[in-house]
Every structure is written in structure tokens, then in C-alpha cells.
């Protein structure tokens, strides 16, 4: 940082940009571990950005130097808070990644249910018909009392 209080140095600004850029890039990955790394980089970039918002200078302790050359203490306090928060969230995400690996053998974030249903329907070349209400009880096979036929539905369309 510059001692003269002329604002943030270009180097720091570039570092913020690089950290956030890499973070976003990693976020776009499928694997939770890479997403986690992305979030760590992104979080550090954002924390650095907050630091840039305050006035740079000497340590903000009364009695150690002239008041007008002190750095702004508020962003530092905020960054401490946000570092703790980022740390906690990272730990939780790590736990989720581990649990996911433990249960399924990988840590990929899957497609959502709807997407998978659409893919399955497209494969079977089937139209989406969710509305089961018809004109009357006889018009809709679904409204007739349960028959063995409904078992097929249950196995095929249940939530994975």
C-alpha cells in the first residue's frame, strides 16, 4: 500500500481481479471440491476488495502516530468478521463434499430433478402430462380406482 494515502495501488486492484476471476472460473465446475476452491478464492478477493475501500496508512492505534496518517480501522474490523464467516462456510462446504463422496463415491453436483425428468422423457419421446384432472372420473384412467397398472408409474417416475 502507498504510505501517502493516494488510494489503493494498482497491484492490489489487479490481485482482486485475478482472485475473483479464478474463483468464478472454478465455480463453474461440476466437482464440489473445485467449487469449494473457487469460493475460497472468491471470498479472499472480496475481502481484499473491502480492504481497498478504506484509507491506507499506519496502524490505527491512538498514540502511535499522527491521527491523519492512520489507516481506516472500520474495513479492517469488517474484514475480520467476513474472514471468520468465509472460514465457517468453507468448513461446512468441505463437510458436504466429504459426505457426498462418502455416500455416492463422487462429489459432483448433479442436474436437478426436473432436468433429469425432461431428459428421460425426451429419450422415451414422451409428452409431459402432469395434469391428472380430466372432465370426469371415467375420462381419466388415473381417476379410476387403483389397479396394478399404477405400480409401473410409481417405479418409473419416483424421485431419485
Amino acid at each position, binding site marked *: 500500500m502507498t504510505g501517502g494515502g493516494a488510494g489503493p495501488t494498482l497491484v492490489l486492484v489487479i490481485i482482486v481481479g485475478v482472485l475473483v476471476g479464478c474463483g468464478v472460473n472454478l*465455480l463453474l465446475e461440476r466437482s*464440489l471440491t473445485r*467449487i469449494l476452491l473457487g*469460493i475460497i478464492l*472468491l*471470498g479472499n478477493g*472480496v*475481502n481484499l*476488495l*473491502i480492504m*481497498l*475501500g*478504506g484509507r491506507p496508512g499506519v496502524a490505527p492505534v491512538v498514540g502511535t502516530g499522527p491521527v491523519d496518517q492512520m489507516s481506516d480501522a*472500520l*474495513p479492517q474490523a*469488517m474484514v475480520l*468478521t*467476513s474472514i471468520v*464467516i468465509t472460514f*465457517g*462456510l468453507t468448513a*461446512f*462446504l468441505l463437510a*458436504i*463434499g466429504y*459426505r*457426498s463422496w462418502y*455416500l*455416492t463415491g463422487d462429489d459432483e*453436483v*448433479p442436474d*436437478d*430433478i*426436473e432436468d433429469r425428468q425432461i431428459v428421460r422423457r425426451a429419450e422415451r419421446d414422451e409428452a*409431459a402430462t*402432469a*395434469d*391428472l*384432472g380430466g372432465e370426469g*372420473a371415467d375420462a381419466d384412467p*388415473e*381417476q*379410476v*380406482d*387403483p389397479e396394478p397398472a*399404477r405400480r409401473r*408409474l*410409481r417405479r418409473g*417416475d*419416483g*424421485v*431419485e
Partner: protein
Amino acid sequence: MNRLLPLPVVVPLLGAALTLVLGRWPRLQRGISVAGLTTTLAVAVVLLVEAYRHGPVVLAVGAWPPPVGIVLVADQLAALMLVVSSAVTLCVLLYSIGQGQGDVGESAPVTIYHPTYLVLTAGVTNAFLAGDLFNLFVGFEILLAASFVLITLGGTEVRIRTGSTYVVVSIVSSMLFLAAVGLVYAATGTLNLAQLATRLDALPDDVRLALQLMLLLAFGVKAAIFPLSAWLPDSYPTAPAPVTAVFAGLLTKVGVYAVIRTETLLFPDRQVAPLLMVVAGLTMLIGILGAVAQSDMKRLFSFTLVSHIGYMIFGVALSSVAGLSGAIFYVVHHITIQTTLFLVAGLVEVRAGSTDLRLLGGLARLAPLLGVLFFVPAMNLAGVPPFSGFLGKLGLLQAGVAAGGALPIALVAAGAATSLLTLYVASRVWNIAFWRSPRLATDEPAVRLPALMVGATAALVALGLVLTVAGGPLFDVTADAAEDLRARTPYIRAVFPGGTP
């Protein structure tokens, strides 16, 4: 009076600590949770009365004067949200106690549930009371961290898979919020909302617009406004029923509250009003069309949740007193009703073994009380007169017509269409799950539903009806709150009685 102000945050946090320590005595744990949330509700009611009669209640925490220290502010909007949210959280807590060993107990240590739930409540109240942007951020983080634990409760495969989407999306939106906070501080040198109100006015228009859009983006993810809403219907339905209910009722509304607060206090010039209107319309229509296509009750309600957020954003975008008043009324109504519907879905799951419409039928004959508990809030949500949903929609549509212009009128049309489609969706659920020939998804249905679960749900249904009966007085409060929001001065003067530094 302002000494009461920290209680809605401190009491649940203290309760969380106590319940965590007393994890081995479930009975004591439950007692502490219920007592804590009842206290919160009582304090919230006192604060609302005080804010309505004498203007915003302000407390500088630790006696640090406002621009430096943390301030808690309860104006009418915040106090009203506080009252509704604590009433709803209390009911959901009772419901989950009634459910007891079922959903939560089998797959997870019960010890975790109560502390986390109380921390979630503390986060929500902290966000409502926050008088500066950073404290708002901290409130969001508290409630998000707690919600992460609740949504992955038990750590089953499905919950971990959907939970990971939720966690990542939430963290990214928090990062956006944090970056916006940093930039706001860099531009103005303060984060106190009342001081920001004056300092942001002095900024160049384009800088202010950039800050506004960044904050909106962060809050938009949390509030599930259309292009940013895809995460919600995927992650909410897999959590335990009470958890989904409280998430649906409160978490998105905290986002909406943040939008209302920042759009009125910090950015009163209507620079982004057209943008907000467009996304509000899209949120309504795309959300409800999503609901039409669903065949599972919980997913269906998640889509109506997204859809009806659009009404609130519409009210904010109008930014007239009538529009804001309607939006605040709608938030209050929607918190209650949407939570009730998810609780009913939970009851259906207990009674019939599933919430999948393809497997259900004839519930009205098998469980008439359940039918009533579903029918009333469902019609309320759809906006059938004379329920509060009708009053809220009417208020908003009238405000839209009064505003005039092509865009507001288009939004009025979209709102009416959404209301009709909601009615279609609600009656479809009714026809399929409650009216056709009886069928259940399980061979061993629970014949008697736990009394406490039914009681808590009935209490929320009744609260929805109270909102209807007390619609007039409630509209007085929301209109008053909206006037204060538009004027901005009551808030600023309450925080800085001697003028803004």
C-alpha cells in the same frame, strides 16, 4: 423502551446456547425453545405498538454513537415483519415438536435441531432490525449458516445433493452482497443506513446505479426473483416439512424486506423501476407456469412461492405509497399462508405417506379436517374474496392502475392472470389429492395425526383468517409504514436526532 430492542436477537441466541448444552434433556430443550420464541413474539408486539404510536425505536448497541457503532432500528416495517415472523416461527416450532421423533428424530440427532432453529430465528430478527448494511449482512449469514444445517439435516443422499446446490448459490449471493457492501463503503465512507441515505444522494448517478444494481442482484438471489430463482424449487422440497415451511415463509421474505429497505431508504429515485417491473412480471408468470407443470405438492408450492414474490416486487417497483403499502401487506399475508401450505403438505405426507399427487386421492373423505386445513389457505393464496390474499392483490392491482402507464397496466394484467392460474393450481391439487377416489401411497397410514401438529397448522390457518378480518387496521399500519418509507425522514431523524453527521 428501546432497551427491549436487542431481545429478539439475544433471546433466541441465548436459547440456542442453552438448548445445545442441555441436549440430553429433550423435554427441557423444547421448553426453552418455546419459551424463547414466545418471549420474542411478545417483545415484537410491544415494539410494533411503540413504533406505530411514537415512531421508530432506536438503540445504539453498547452506547457507541450511530455512525461508528451498531444501531438496531425497529420502524413500523421492521416491527411488523418481526411480529409476523416470530408468530410463524413459534407455530412451526410447535409443529416440529408435535412431529417429534418422526421426521427429525430418526435420521438426525434431535439435539441439533432446536439450537439451529433458534439461531435461524436470531438471524432473521437481526436482519429485520439491522440499522447498517454490514449488520444486515451478518444477519443474513447467521440465518444462512443455520439454514445450511437444517436443509442437510440427517445428511441423507438426496438432501446432500440438493443441499449442495442451495449452499453454493447462497454463498455466492453472500459474496456478491459482501462485495457490494465493500464498494458502498469505498464510495461513501459509511455503512449506517440513515447516513447512507444522505451520502448516496451526493454520489454521481452512474456510481449510485452500479451500487444499487449490485445490491439488488444479491438480494434478488435471496428473494428468488425470476432469473435468479431456479435454485429454490430444487432445494426446498427435500428438507423436513417444518424446515421447508419456515424457509418458504421467512427466508425469501428477508430478501424482499432488504429490497424494500434499500430501494426506499437508499435509492428513492426510481431509476430501476422499469427493470423491477419487468422481472416482477416474469417472476409471477414463469413461477406459476412452473407450478402448473408440477405433480408433487411440495414442489408445486415452491413454485407458487417464487411466483408470488413477483407481487411484492411489483409493489416495490411502483414505489408509490399505495404500492409499498400493498407490498408490505402482501409480505405479511404470504409469510403466513405459504408457511401454512407447506405445513399442510407435511401433514399430508404423514397421513398418506407421500406428497406426490399421482399417488394420492380422496383425502377429503379420509381426513376431512385435513381437507379444511388445506382448502382455506389454498383459496386464500389464490386470492378468492374475502380472504387476505384477495385484499393484498386488490391493493396492489389498484396501486398499479392508479400509477397508470403501459408497464404498470401490463403488470396488473399479469398479476390477475397469475391469480387465476394460482386458483387453477390450487383447485387441481384439491381435485386430485382430496376429491377423487381414495388412495394412499402407504399401506400403513397414520390414522391419527399428532394433535400438536394439527393444532399448530390450525393456529396458522386461523392467523391467516385474522389477517383477513383485521385487514382494515392492518392496511392502516402498512400504509403508515409505507408513508414513513417514502418520506425517509422519520427513519433518518430517529437514528440521528441531532441531524445527520
